[in-house]
């Protein structure tokens, strides 16, 4: 088999698409992030790691505009900003998933993923009330797109199941589907594999790599499982108590003394 095995191509990255410069964030005196800077290049998979409370989720929240840092700037696609609303970030092509699943519990898988396309659907209320012509056409076009995602994530069988009834692993997958529906250029994944068994983790890793590969999506992810991080990321940023400990390729980070020290102090799975 090896003779004909598919050849993994040399990974090629574009320019820096997202740059985080000197970000500090605090909540009523508690410093969550302190002078964090790093850059993400187009088509890269970047992992943010660090112990609990290191400020990883806060970092994602800053990137997509949910938290407003007291200091520092975010430059995304050449545009520098300090304050913006999350829905504006979404419209600029940033999508994300959440550490604690944030699906719309009362809706089906299909409808959840369809909400990911809401920013692209424009027919107004009157058209929708009549459900004719352009409104119907628009709805069907987007449904077709969403069906591709459903197929991609292999969740056909739960298409019409209310997400509240799904097991955890599938909910995570639906959430990824919802983020993908927006055709993001930058995808933020907050612990996409937390609480999964080995098989589910493998599936999820495959989906993440496929997304990166097939659609060229730039990915920033937070993950605890070091095996997974080392396997799928091109670049790793290590946070510890709000500061940046290290920043480099998985191999560099693994051999960084400071990281080793920080991690030896903390029990890790």
């Amino acid at each position, binding site marked *: 088999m090896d003779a004909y095995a598919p050849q993994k191509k040399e990974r090629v990255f574009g320019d820096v698409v997202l740059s985080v410069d000197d970000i500090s964030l605090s*909540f*009523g005196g508690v410093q969550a992030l302190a002078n964090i800077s790093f850059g993400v290049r187009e088509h890269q998979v970047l992992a943010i790691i660090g112990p609990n409370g290191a400020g990883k*989720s806060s970092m994602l*929240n800053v990137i997509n505009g*949910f938290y407003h840092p007291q200091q520092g700037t975010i430059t995304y696609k050449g545009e520098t900003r300090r304050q913006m609303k999350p829905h504006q970030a979404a419209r600029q092509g940033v999508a994300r998933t*959440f*550490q*604690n699943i*944030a699906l719309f519990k009362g809706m089906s898988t299909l409808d959840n993923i369809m909400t990911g396309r809401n920013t692209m659907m424009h027919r107004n209320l009157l058209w929708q009330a009549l459900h004719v012509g352009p409104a119907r056409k628009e709805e069907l076009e987007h449904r077709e797109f969403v069906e591709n995602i459903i197929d991609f994530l292999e969740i056909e069988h739960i298409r019409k199941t209310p997400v509240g009834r799904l097991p955890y692993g599938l909910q995570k997958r639906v959430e990824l589907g919802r983020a993908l529906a927006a055709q993001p250029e930058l995808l933020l994944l907050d612990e996409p594999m937390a609480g999964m068994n080995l098989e589910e983790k493998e599936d999820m890793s495959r989906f993440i790599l496929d997304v990166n590969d097939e659609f060229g999506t730039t990915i920033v992810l937070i993950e605890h499982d070091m095996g997974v991080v080392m396997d799928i990321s091109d670049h790793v940023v290590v946070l510890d108590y709000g500061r940046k400990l290290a920043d480099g390729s998985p191999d560099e980070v693994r051999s960084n003394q400071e990281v080793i020290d920080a991690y030896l102090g903390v029990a890790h799975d």
Partner: protein
Amino acid sequence: MEFLTAIFVTPFVEIVSYPIFFFEVVIGGLLAGVMYSLVALGFVLIFKASGVFNFAQGAMVLFAALTLVGLMEHGLPWWLALLLTIAVMVLLAITVEKVVLRKLVNQEAIILFMATIGLSYFLDGFGQTIWGSDVKVLDLGIPSAPLEFGGILVNEFDIVAAVSAGSLVAVLAVFFQKTRIGRALRAVADDHQAALSVGIPLKTIWAIVWSVAGLVGLVAGIMWGTKLGVQFTLTLVALKALPVLILGGFTSIPGAIIGGLIIGMGEKVAEVFWGAAFGGAIEDWFAYMLALVFLLFRPQGLFGDKIIERV
């Protein structure tokens, strides 16, 4: 132009010209506010301990007053009637816990809210079925002569009401701070699991809270009943406690008291000095508008913590 003058000029001119009258209005408002606080207190107790937005608090006020008056009409001495009414309110609390709350324990908040509306319908109907729907006079012999303090006229009854309310709050404070049950109640508000570890079953706690809320309702019922007569409109007075709640926060006892004072005073002052500009009777909605405007600037209420949203 005339309208603007009526809003922005005339009232202030009047306030400055007749300061004594203004103070009388303010004090009258504050004293009425105390009674709003009483009703609001009942809401807060239950919301704090069980997360239930108890819409039936107003109905409990009416029911308690009706029962008291009804018993007295049957010739019972006031103290016996009072004791019996207290017993009835405790019985009611236990029944509500057994029949309603326990069955709905894990439902969404809105469902529990609806159940309390159902309960309020039931209590209104039940009270009137038993005691009839005529306006009844409640006379516990509280004096109501006007008194004068430094030129300001105050009704004696209002003073009594304020003092009663004040002592009730004090008693409650002691109850919550010093007794084991009181501490358990506070624990429940923070964390149901933690409360269980105190060793008091949740259902007992709920029954107690509803009993206490019933007693607070009884006090409010006596006050309002003496003032307005015991009748169906008492339940509407209870609605006035709602803006107090938004203002003070659903879980804060001091909030309920201070909110009540603010609403009572604001309402009176607005009615007396600005009412004319709007054609009168702005009492109906002023409290809500006041609370609403307030909320726009401070969504967490007077005493709530700033909400940090997490995802």
